[in-house]
């Protein structure tokens, strides 16, 4: 099949190309001002043959014809493009909380972080394959709980979660130093810094004789 297409073939070709829907041979003939149906059928067949092995093909589905991208090139229609992105700080924190506290619900994550956690943050971590939904907690509301995945361990080079440095190790490496430690250091009160981080209402306003205000 080569050479120039005849007029009918050209008309059929253009009609099928511009059509928003697949068309039967009869519909094509009708569209072309009542062209001869068998001639149109022949033209369609000739075109289908002509387009074989090209990037596009003319196919019949349930008596209706339409052009489509060649099946073996379907991957061109949807391409995947990989991009490398650093996890945001918020996502990193959430991941760390899941890793240290799993299984953990979103509300728990928020209470540990002290800030609200966007839904998208958990989605990103699930998309990355590092956390997964690990069931529901059997408490009112039955919240979803999250846990890390084997991919997480693999990515971070851990053989198990127990390889994560403990709180004491974090503290020793300075990673737990709160920001205002710097202030304390400057004002010279470092020897007995808050050892207890459990609760804060045990502040003991030691000296009772501090008052200027009791006159």
């Amino acid at each position, binding site marked *: 099949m080569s050479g120039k297409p005849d007029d009918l073939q050209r008309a059929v070709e253009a009609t099928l190309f*511009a059509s*928003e*829907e697949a068309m039967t041979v009869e519909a094509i003939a009708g569209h072309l001002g009542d062209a001869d149906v068998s001639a149109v059928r022949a033209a369609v067949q000739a075109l289908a043959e002509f387009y074989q092995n090209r990037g596009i093909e003319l196919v019949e589905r349930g008596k209706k014809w*339409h052009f*489509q*991208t060649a099946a073996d090139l379907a991957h061109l*229609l*949807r*391409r*995947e*493009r*990989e*991009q*490398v*992105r*650093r*996890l945001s*700080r918020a*996502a*990193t*924190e959430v*991941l*760390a*909380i899941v*890793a240290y506290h799993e299984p953990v619900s979103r509300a728990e994550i928020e209470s*540990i*972080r*002290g800030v609200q956690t966007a839904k998208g943050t958990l989605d*990103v971590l699930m*998309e990355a394959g*590092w956390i997964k939904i690990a069931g529901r907690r059997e408490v009112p509301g039955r919240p979803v709980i999250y846990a890390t995945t084997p991919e997480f361990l693999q990515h*971070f*080079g*851990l053989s198990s979660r127990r390889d*994560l*440095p403990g*709180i004491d190790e*974090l503290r020793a490496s300075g*990673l*737990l*130093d*709160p*920001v*205002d430690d710097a202030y304390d250091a400057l004002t010279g*009160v470092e020897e007995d810094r*808050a050892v*207890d*981080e*459990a609760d804060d209402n*045990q*502040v*003991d*306003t*030691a*000296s009772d*004789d*501090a008052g*200027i205000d*009791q*006159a």
Partner: protein
Amino acid sequence: MSENELMFGDASTAGSDEDWIAPASAETEDTALYLELDGWEGPLDLLLDLARRQKVDLRQISILSLVDQYLDYIERAEALKLEVAADYLVMAAWLAFLKSSMLLPKEEQEDPSPEELALKLQLRLQRLGAMRESAARLMARDRIGRDVFVRGAPEGLRIDRKTQWQCDMYALIQGYGQVKARTAPAIHMVRERPVMTLESALDRVSAMLGVTLDWVSLEEFLPPHAEPRLRKSAMASSFVAALELARMGKAEIAQDKVFGPMRLRRVVA
């Protein structure tokens, strides 16, 4: 003007009037002309149409007869009591002026000369004519959706971006450390500090005042070898004690100037 120019035909022959909602030019009769009063887009448009009626190259139209036609048109429109928009009347007045200047003897002419004005009008008409012609030719091209068609149902190309997220161990534990540090309860310890209470200051000041009748400066009431923080506390307490003693009528206070040294003296009862 040069002789050999490009010629531009009547737009109506260039086809594709169909794109115009209101065809401006009435083809032939004067009557039609009048009925189309609203069909012109301004005086220049009307002039162009009248010029085309001269059936010659726009570069060879007679401005004088064009002026006559225009004035005639406006007059007749007014006679028919059609409302003639102001800009048409302004053009009429200008053309009437142009015509009279063109008919005047050369010597009496001003600058710009009527010839210049007439030629510029002609040039304007040519330019408008050219654009009108071009517009018609543009509209007559094979247009998508009218003459040529793109694919009716394209599959569409999609690019799915897949993100490869990156994070390392250090960032992870640092993140956890930050959470912990941020949310660790802030513990405020008020440490025991050396202070002099108001009571002890009162005792101390009144006892010392009892020793002398002279003015004594406030500093002298402070414990002499106290460390700075205690001294500060003592200063504050002694000051309040002094005020208290003055209030009770047991002492008087003098200060010569603002922020000057403060002196105290016992009031003898």
